[in-house]
């Protein structure tokens, strides 16, 4: 997210040659990066936690995040509760475990949606150019012309009940333009490559040229940015939830935990530490994976 568009676009260079060989090369380089394994391991654990939270929540004797005892409000870590309890007397560990799913769902769903729209729009604009390209350029200009967070604030304000899906939809609405621009740039650099011209000369239909030759070679840098974007979306979701615009109370999420803990930060800071640290680690793992992928998928970085 922090990388400027120009630099990301500069990284877009078509790989020539046969796709499977290139893919093998990518894997061989990736395999040797320790950072890739660290990020992948962290993300695997998080994915497991998100899929089967109940397997992890009970490790310290309090498996149910909603089994709260008001008499045990804001207990410091230690004793029966390894990370303490929050104001409502709920176990912080169990809540952090169950909150993983909300963050990952929003991050992945939003990125998948934005990527899907961006792939269609960006490919059409980049491959065919012309009027469509100009319309898309103007449209992305408008969306990229103002801060993402302010737009999301305005739209979410008018949505009454919010679930992980609605939040992901709204965030996708504001994040597809970045991806679309990237796909367009990526497709444009590949469009006039000799092997695409060869495919065209052979009389293949556009659909086949795009699916077989253009997309596979244009996709790499886009996927790297998409990985980084998952991290950015998770931050955006928790920030909006913290402001009071993301997920609502019955849901369990890190953003909500942090939001309610904030009022008591002077007396019980332990309620902030666990969700804050886990949130940061998740985002860090996503961004690191995205960085490693970008390094590897950029052929100039592979030599």
């Amino acid at each position, binding site marked *: 997210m*922090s990388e400027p568009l120009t630099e990301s676009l500069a990284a877009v260079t078509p790989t020539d040659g046969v796709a499977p060989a290139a893919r093998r090369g990518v894997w061989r380089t990736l395999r040797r990066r320790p950072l890739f394994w660290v990020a992948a391991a962290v993300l695997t654990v998080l994915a497991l936690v998100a899929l089967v939270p109940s397997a992890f929540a009970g490790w310290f004797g309090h498996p149910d995040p909603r089994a709260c005892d008001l008499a045990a409000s804001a207990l410091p870590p230690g004793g029966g509760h390894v990370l303490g309890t929050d104001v409502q007397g709920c176990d912080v560990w169990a809540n952090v475990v169950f909150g993983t799913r909300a963050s990952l769902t929003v991050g992945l769903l939003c990125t998948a949606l934005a990527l899907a729209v961006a792939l269609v729009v960006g490919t059409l604009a980049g491959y065919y150019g012309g009027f469509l390209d100009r319309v898309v350029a103007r449209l992305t200009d408008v969306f990229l012309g103002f801060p993402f967070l302010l*737009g999301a604030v305005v739209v979410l304000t008018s*949505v*009454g009940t919010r679930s992980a899906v609605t939040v992901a939809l709204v965030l996708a609405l504001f994040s597809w333009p970045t991806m679309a621009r990237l796909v367009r740039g990526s497709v444009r650099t590949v469009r006039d490559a000799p092997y695409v011209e060869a495919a065209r000369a052979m009389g293949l239909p556009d659909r086949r040229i795009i699916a077989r030759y253009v997309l596979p070679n244009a996709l790499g840098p886009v996927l790297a940015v998409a990985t980084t974007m998952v991290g950015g979306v998770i931050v955006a979701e928790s920030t909006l939830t913290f402001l009071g615009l993301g997920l609502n109370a019955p849901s369990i999420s890190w953003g909500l935990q*942090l939001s309610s803990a904030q009022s008591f*930060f002077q007396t019980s800071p332990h309620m902030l530490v666990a969700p804050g640290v886990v949130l*940061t680690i998740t*985002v860090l793992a996503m961004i690191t994976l995205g960085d490693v992928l970008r390094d590897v998928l950029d052929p100039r970085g592979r030599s």
Partner: protein
Amino acid sequence: MTRRVTRRLVDLVVVFLGVTLIIYLMVFALPGDPIAALGGDRPLAPNVVAELRERYHLDEPVLQQYLRYLGGLLQGDLGTTFQGQSVADRTALRWPVTITLALTAWGIEVLLGVLLGLVAGLRAGTVSDRLILAGTVVATSIPVFVLAVSAQLWLGVRLSWFPVAGTGEGWPTAYLLPAAVIAVFGLASVARLMRGSVVDTLRTDFVRALRAKGLRERQVVGVHVMRSSAIPVLTFLAIDLGYLLGGTVVVEGVFNLPGVGQLLFQAIRAHEGPTIVGVSTALIIVFLLTNLLVDLLASVLDPRIRHE
């Protein structure tokens, strides 16, 4: 140059119309009734609802409402809150706080970001370079509100190095900590961008020529490398000044600074649609104008853009 300015102004108008229309359409096309929310838990009488709808022009077609709003905007009218105050009046006294905060953050970003990026770029591949790069990745991963609350707790409450909240102690004391918190994210980007830019510039022929003619290294770096590397960084900094304004929402809320961001923060909690739209629009206008200004500034610095 004149053509460039005109083109940028046309772009600005298009983006502005697009942004306000998108926001307006989405606010009105989605379910949720602000008038019903006014009554709290008790439903309002139908005639009261009708009266309020008419007063706030909610009974007109959306497009007409939008045009009315745009017309008002051009006269400096950002709308009226449900309490009957003008949004422009409510924000007027708050702008100095927000602008001071954003500019302080920006200053931190420029100074530290450029310095760290320069150090990393000049020593590319060394331990200090790697440390700075790793630091920037970690910095971008910490959400602003987590950082804000942690800084408030550790540096404000525990160590008492900075005031915990409010603007009582004036500039710079009261602004340093919140500004630093907002600056962290952009600072990391500036440092990375500057590093890349410096590394690229050091490889160019003109730097080799400068060195070959015996120019002192301090001058090569201080004047020529700095100026040439500054352009992408400057463009980023321009856009980021706008994002800093957006970041003030969270930080002013947490540190209780009476700025525009705090107003938006409170309006969000109170579900005050008109205030949210008004304040957001104001922030977006400031964002667009800043972009225009620095884009033109960049063309003064970079002859390639000027003679395009």
